[in-house]
Structures are given as structure tokens and as C-alpha cells.
């Protein structure tokens, strides 16, 4: 066993033993002024045993691959001061390739002072401006992204004014929770500011600006290099594709009216993007400037049992993301990039979207609340329709309609059903396109004082390229599970994923089972055995490909 492996094993053991201390061990008394000093701990342990590892980068799928990942969140609070840290560890006893690397690092670190309307933070913080169109550095658990801005953050909020200024470098979770590979930090330099004015509590006007400088520029390198010791990633002087310098500016503003006359809410935002880049070519340095903009608006009307939501968007060359790390992109083939904004998609949650940067669209949703029954049962129905131009790509059109029913029994039972269809059409004469039908069902059934059932089924029928004889692919894809909660401690889940696409090899069914034990209501351990389906997953327009899983995994979370 190498020294590195031994040190990781030792670190894991020390960590686990430390966390096995009783909760009273973290009561830290009080300051002289009487303010309590407390330590919050959230500890997450993930163990995977892949009987067969799904990694397209490897010619032969490795078997019997084990890995351990650990996330420890600590937060110390004393009066108006707080400090927090996230310590990440990853251990691969027998790494299948150089992309899987042992790691132990302070992933997030922050010190915050909050007094009156002022907040000052040094270290890592999330930043989102407006509806996330200009900047959205945040956690998107559904796709395994977690981006913070490591630097200085200052904010002020009063009843009429609010302001926020942030400056720092982008920091991502380096041990990727989806592919388990080690991804380097982008270390892009971001400076942003936003001011808000609320003449009344229901009205808000805002202006904001963002400056993002990619790592390749001399300024970025000069400023970032001293801080690099935290992340241990070397700056590579050789730019990818000769691209030496990329800098983006966004300026924008928004208007929001909340529940006017208890009837109407409005929101509108406009952002203008300028991206300047320099590329080293044989003929010398080539400079270029691109412009883009984004316009979004929504109106919500509340009228008794009827709620109407209407949204529209028009995005033109509005793309904002990190660039691949020059060093690892070339030597290890890791080209993961991270989105820095998340404009509204107007799509249903989880919808696969190929383009949310150059697209126009509108969405309308009507909800109707049926009369409450004498027994207290409630029902809602809704219908939703959306249409897009230049989606999924330029010249294409997309329409999507779906409807649903939600029933809530007075005793707590609930049933929710949704069904819809989507049509993606190419310009006339082209064979590409998609017809999709989806069904979703959820049920929650209370069986007794200590027993309840949860059931979920999502099913999609896809017909890709329906007019093409060779590339046509008709398939079904879905996930179903049923969970029996035996409270307060146990939960048992049986699940079945399926995917019959021609693009996939191997069995089209993915059976698996979970067993969960809750130590208390916020701490648990659960074990999965079987197979689960990967593939393209999206959340809010942010998509990535997940690997299939086959084997056994353990997840545990403890909070103190």
C-alpha cells in the first residue's frame, strides 16, 4: 500500500471516528457577551462498488471498482460572525484511469459577518443576479454542479434599497459527484454588482453588471496565481486552440411587481452581453467581438380559483460558461465546462434542452382549483403549452403541451398525474425531428400511524427522426419506484429504470433496490444494490450525460 493510500485511509478513519463523537461534543459554550458559540456539522459519506464501471473514455469497462467520497460541512457561529468549511475527500484504491484521482481538499471556505442590513463575506459564496440571466453561480444538485465565487462579497439591504458587490474567482466541486473524476477549477475572474430600489414593498427596480475574465489573460493570471494554493491547480500558459483571452461584460436591469391588488405579478429583465476574445493564429493575434442579448418577461394573474402564468423569452447569442482547463483538457481529456448563468427555459422541469442561448419562445400555463369537497379533499387541474423558434437548433421549431391533475385527500393521500406531447420539427426537406409522449404519475398513500407508500412512474415514448428510414429510432424510456416507509427508522425502495434505444447496448432494464435506515429525522444511511440508468439529464436547461451504474452504493448523512 502506498503512503498516499495509507494517508487517505487514515484520514478517513480519523474523520469517521471524530464524527462518531456524541452531539454534545460540539456544544462550545458562549462568548463573554453571552452569544452562544455553536458548531453545525453535516457529514456525507458515499461509497460505490461498481461491478462494471460505465466510462465511455475507457475501451474496456473496468470491473469491481471501489471508490469512497466524503463531504464534511462545518459551520461555526458566534453572534453575528460565522465561518464555514467544506472538506472533500476522494479515495480510489485502484483507479481505473488517470482521470480518477485521490483527493483531499478544502472545497469551500468562508467567513461571514452579518450585522444590521450589512453582510460581508470573505471566501466562497453563491451569486445569482435577477432571474439568473446575467449570473448564476450556484448549486445544481440534479446535474452535480456546484459553483461558488471565491473572493470578497459585500451586501446591504434595507426596506427600500439593496446592493451587492462580488469579486473573486470561480470555484467548482473538484471531485465530480456524477462521473467521480477530478475536475480542475476554472478560476475565471468574476466581478459583479447589483443595486435594487423598492419604492414600495411590492415594486422593485434593479440594475446589474458583470465582468468575467477567463483564465488565459495576463490580468487573470496575475490575480489568480496567488490564490491557487487553495486549489492546487497549475495555470497553464498554453491556451486551447490558441485562444489567449476571453472577457465578457453583461449589463442589464429588471423590474418586478409583486401581487399588485392581490391579482397580478409582473417581471421583466433585459441583459446585454459583449464578449471580446483574442486568438493566436499563424498570421498573428486575431481579435474578435461578439454581442448578444436576452429578454425575458412573465405575468401571473390570480383570480380566485384560476391562476394564469404567461412567459416569453428571446435570447440571441447569449452564452456564458467557463472554458476547459488547458492542462487537463489536453493531457487527460477532461473538458467539463460550467455554466455561469441559467436563463429561464420556459420548459417543464427536467426537460432535455439542446439550446437555451439562441432561441425565442413563449409559455402559458393555466391552473384551476376545483371546489373543496365536504370531506376536505382538494383537486387541481392544469394545462400548459409552449412554443419555441430555433429550438433545438437554428431553423427548427418545437411545440410542447401537457396537462395534469392533482388530488389531495383530507387524510394526506395524494395522487398526481401528468401527460403531454412534444414535437420538434426540422425545416422542410430535412429528416431530423422528434415526437415524444410523456406520462408521469406520483402517489402517496398513508397506510397507518407508522406506514406509508410512495409511488412514482415517469415514462417517455420517443420517435427520433420519424421521416428517416435509416436513422429512425423509436424507443421508450422511464423510471418507476415504490417506497415503503416504516417510520421512524426504515424505508425500502424497489425501482426499475428502462431504456430501449438503439443507441444503447446491453440489457434495456435496470432493476435496483434501496434500503434506508434513519438514525433520526435528519441523519440516515442507505444502501443501493442493482443497476440504474444514466443518459442525458437536465435541470433548468443545464444538461449533462450521466453514466449508468451497476453495483452497490452506500450513502450516509449525519447532522449534528
Amino acid at each position, binding site marked *: 500500500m502506498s503512503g498516499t493510500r495509507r494517508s487517505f*485511509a487514515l484520514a*478517513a*478513519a480519523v*474523520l*469517521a*471516528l471524530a*464524527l*462518531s*463523537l*456524541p*452531539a454534545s461534543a460540539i*456544544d462550545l459554550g458562549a462568548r463573554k457577551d453571552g*452569544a452562544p458559540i*455553536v458548531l*453545525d456539522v*453535516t457529514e*456525507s*459519506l458515499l461509497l460505490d462498488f461498481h461491478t462494471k464501471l460505465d466510462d465511455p473514455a475507457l475501451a474496456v469497462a473496468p470491473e469491481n471498482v471501489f471508490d469512497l467520497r466524503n463531504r464534511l460541512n462545518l*459551520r461555526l457561529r458566534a453572534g*453575528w460572525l*460565522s465561518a464555514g468549511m467544506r472538506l472533500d475527500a476522494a479515495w480510489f484504491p485502484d483507479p481505473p484511469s488517470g482521470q480518477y484521482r485521490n483527493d483531499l481538499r478544502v472545497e469551500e471556505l468562508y467567513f461571514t459577518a*452579518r450585522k444590521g442590513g450589512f453582510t460581508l463575506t470573505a471566501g466562497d*459564496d*453563491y451569486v*445569482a443576479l435577477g*432571474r439568473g440571466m446575467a449570473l448564476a453561480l*450556484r448549486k445544481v444538485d440534479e446535474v452535480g454542479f456546484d459553483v461558488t465565487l471565491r473572493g470578497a462579497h459585500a451586501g446591504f*439591504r434595507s426596506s427600500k434599497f439593496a446592493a*451587492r458587490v462580488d469579486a473573486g474567482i470561480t470555484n467548482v466541486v473538484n471531485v465530480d459527484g456524477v462521473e467521480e473524476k477530478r475536475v480542475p477549477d476554472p478560476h475565471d475572474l468574476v466581478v459583479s454588482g447589483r443595486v435594487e430600489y423598492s419604492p414600495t*414593498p411590492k415594486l422593485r427596480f434593479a440594475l446589474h453588471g458583470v465582468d468575467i475574465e477567463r483564465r488565459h489573460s495576463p490580468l487573470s493570471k496575475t490575480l489568480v496565481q496567488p490564490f491557487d494554493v487553495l486549489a492546487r491547480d497549475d495555470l497553464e500558459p498554453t491556451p486551447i486552440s490558441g485562444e489567449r483571452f476571453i472577457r465578457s461584460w453583461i449589463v442589464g436591469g429588471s423590474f418586478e411587481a409583486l401581487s399588485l391588488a392581490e391579482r397580478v*405579478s409582473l417581471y421583466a429583465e433585459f441583459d446585454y452581453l459583449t464578449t471580446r476574445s483574442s486568438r493566436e493564429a499563424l498570421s498573428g493575434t486575431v481579435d474578435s467581438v461578439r454581442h448578444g442579448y436576452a429578454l425575458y418577461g412573465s405575468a*401571473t394573474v*390570480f383570480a380566485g380559483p384560476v*391562476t394564469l402564468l404567461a*412567459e416569453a423569452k428571446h435570447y440571441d447569442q447569449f452564452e456564458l460558461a467557463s472554458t476547459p482547463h488547458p492542462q487537463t483538457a489536453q493531457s487527460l481529456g477532461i473538458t467539463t465546462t460550467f455554466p455561469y448563468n441559467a436563463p429561464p427555459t420556459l420548459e417543464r422541469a427536467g426537460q432535455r434542452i439542446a439550446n437555451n442561448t439562441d432561441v425565442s419562445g413563449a409559455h402559458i400555463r393555466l*391552473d*384551476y*382549483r376545483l371546489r373543496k369537497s365536504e370531506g376536505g379533499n*382538494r383537486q*387541481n387541474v392544469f394545462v400548459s403549452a409552449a412554443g419555441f423558434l430555433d429550438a433545438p437548433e437554428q431553423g427548427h421549431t418545437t411545440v410542447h403541451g401537457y396537462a395534469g391533475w392533482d388530488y*389531495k385527500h383530507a387524510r*394526506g393521500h*395524494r395522487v398526481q398525474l401528468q401527460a403531454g406531447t412534444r414535437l420538434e420539427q426540422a425545416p422542410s426537406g430535412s429528416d431530423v425531428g422528434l415526437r415524444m409522449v410523456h406520462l408521469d404519475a406520483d402517489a*402517496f398513500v*398513508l397506510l*397507518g*400511524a*407508522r*406506514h*406509508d407508500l410512495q409511488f412514482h412512474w415517469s415514462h417517455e415514448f420517443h420517435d427520433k427522426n420519424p421521416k428517416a428510414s435509416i436513422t429512425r429510432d423509436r424507443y421508450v424510456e422511464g423510471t418507476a419506484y415504490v417506497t415503503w*416507509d416504516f417510520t*421512524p427508522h426504515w424505508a425500502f425502495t424497489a425501482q426499475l429504470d428502462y431504456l430501449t434505444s438503439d443507441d444503447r447496448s446491453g440489457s434495456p432494464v435496470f432493476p435496483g433496490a434501496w434500503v434506508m435506515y434513519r*438514525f*433520526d*429525522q*435528519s441523519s440516515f444511511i442507505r444502501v443501493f444494490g442493482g443497476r440504474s440508468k444514466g443518459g442525458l439529464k437536465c435541470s433548468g436547461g443545464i444538461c449533462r450525460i450521466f453514466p449508468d451504474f451497476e453495483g452497490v452504493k452506500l450513502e*450516509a*448523512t*449525519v447532522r*449534528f
Partner: protein
Amino acid sequence: MSGRTLIAVALAAWALGCGSTEPQRRGDDGGASSASPGADTEAGSGRKVSASATFAVTDIDGRRFALADHLGRDVVLLSFWATFCEPCKTEMPYLQRMHERLAGQGLAVLSVSLDGPETWAEVAPYIKSNDYTFPVAIDQDSTIAVAWNPRAAAPFTVLIGRDGRIARTIEGFQLSEAARLEAEVERLLAQDK
């Protein structure tokens, strides 16, 4: 000792340690009024909310909710949810019932949406179409989640007693636990500050 042995020992210790966070299990009757000794311990020695964890937000109707206004006076229930979280939506009728029944006795409910900016527009329509009347705020810059729910789990509930101490944190929602939560709230409301 080999690395694998170390890991095995660590896991065993970890699991045993987890058990220690709840000194005794709940009684078989599941009665919430006789909440588990573990819960009593949590409530009795629960950590006092520090000033750094307080926040003030504007809800979806333009009303201001400041946690500091309620600490030490009311029982506060923070409920984290998202529009794409079905268990969260199943929990909401219970929140509404508690809000209707117990707000007058000193219960302050705040529902905190963890939705990303791309789905913020759907938060208010969902709440209004279901006729929920408790305050709902969108955690736009993750300030509340960072302070109270760093894993951004949903559903996730924090219950704070009149004494300003955290009485309970709950990840997930099970229908068969809902009545227990309601009874726990009533028990905290009956306690002195």
C-alpha cells in the same frame, strides 16, 4: 493495519456514532406528544440560533419576513421545498393546516423555495393555485440555504422553539410522520419562552 481495515473500522465507528445522535428510540405508540427521548434531548439542548443565522426576506406577496422578529417569541417552522419536488408538495397541506390552526397561538411558518432562477416564475402560481396562505419566499441568493440547509435538501424542515433553540431538523417527508410533526409543534407552542 491495512487501508481497507482502517476503512472498515472507520465505518463501524461512524455507524455506531450515528446511533448516538438519538440516545433512545421512539416509543412504539408513535405518539408525538410523548416525543422520543432523542427529540426531547434535541429540544432541551438544542443549539440557540445565533445572530449570523438570522435573515430577512420579502415573500412572493411583497411581505417582509424577518427571522429575528420571531426568535424568542414564536415557534418558527422553516420548510424548504421546490416546485419539482413531489414529496414537498405532499407536505404542504399539512403546513397550511398548521398555519391556519396555530398561527394565532404563535406559530410562524416560512416556506423557502430552493428553485433555481429558471423556475422562479412557477413558485407563486403553484402556491396561489393551491390557496396556500403561509408566507413563501424564494431563496434567490442561497443565503437561507447556506445558513440552514447547506446540502440544499428538499423537503427539509427546521423547527425552532419559543426559546430560540433549534428543536428539530428533518430531511425528507413521510406521510406517517406528519402527525408527529404537528404534535411536536403543539408541544413547543405550549412551552414557555
